[in-house]
């Protein structure tokens, strides 16, 4: 194993991401190479220092300030999921109501249709009844003679 490879694997070792076989090879290299051993120790120490660096705290009014900014922007806020769902349902309902009312209006029988139907039915029943049929035919003859 050369030093370049050993240093790459050293990083993996300190992040616990090295397989056991590679780990053995690396440890063997580190035991015989002071430069790489130094590299490993220093990088390991650095990692420890980084994880312990001081954590600056936010100011005590941080949360209040965020809330105030949220309130100020509330007007342009994207509405919540519940509100958006309710809005979508209301829109669909409105569209259904409008389409249904248009359909009902178009399908309603007009007065002329009603009269035509009435005359047709009247003629039909008249022709079915023999007495009325004769009477009707006689009237038609008289009308035509006139």
């Amino acid at each position: 194993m050369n030093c370049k490879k050993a240093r790459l694997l050293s990083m993996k070792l300190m992040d616990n991401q090295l397989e056991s076989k590679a780990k053995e090879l690396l440890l063997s290299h580190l035991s015989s190479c002071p430069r790489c051993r130094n590299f490993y120790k220093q990088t390991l120490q650095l990692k420890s220092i980084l994880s312990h660096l001081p954590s600056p705290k936010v100011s005590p009014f941080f949360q209040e300030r965020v809330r105030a900014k949220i309130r100020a922007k509330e007007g342009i806020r994207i509405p919540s999921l519940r509100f958006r769902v309710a809005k979508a349902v209301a829109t669909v309902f409105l569209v259904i109501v409008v389409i249904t009312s248009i359909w009902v209006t178009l399908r309603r029988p007009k007065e002329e249709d009603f009269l035509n139907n009435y005359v047709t039915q009247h003629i039909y029943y008249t022709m079915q009844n023999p007495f009325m049929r004769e009477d009707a035919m006689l009237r038609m003859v008289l009308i035509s003679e006139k």
Partner: protein
Amino acid sequence: MKGDLSQEPDHVIVERIREGEEEVFDILIARYKDSLFKFIYYNLPQREEAEDIAQESFLKAFLALPRLRNPRRFKTWLFSIALNLVRDHKREFKRKPSLPLEDLPGNLEPTALDDPSDDVENEDLLKRVREGIERLPSKLREVLILYDMQGFSYEEIASIVHCPLGTVKSRLFKARQMLREMLSPYIEGDEDEL
């Protein structure tokens, strides 16, 4: 109500906010304000600006919450928003890479380095580490902070900084190597190096 939710995972809280309980966003602020501020602070060590950006990050996250696809990844998403704001800020105000050490916050937590009796030495070392971090190129610094200081996984970092996994690993390697070289005289190694 809020007390009940304080132990709940992020995605449960996010769903409650989306359903209209906006006040529970406070739980997420309380949960992440310090770690987010630390992340921004070490990327942009002007305290006032770092805090403004942290507030702005929460605001943007709140406003865009209905668009968050995977609520389980809220933390990663929040840090991604913060990183974009940090980058925007840096683009807007190109600054010299100088660290205002006098700007160190007064209420820092005590460090947990090995030996408490070495406080003075530790303090000096910490200053040098901070200077070293500040001198790193931005892209290397971002990855180093996210991995070694914030404990994110490679995958999460790839998602935050918008780059492939391999790039995250190589940036981390380079960052550690550069920082080690800068601080080599101040950190322990083997006596028998040469």
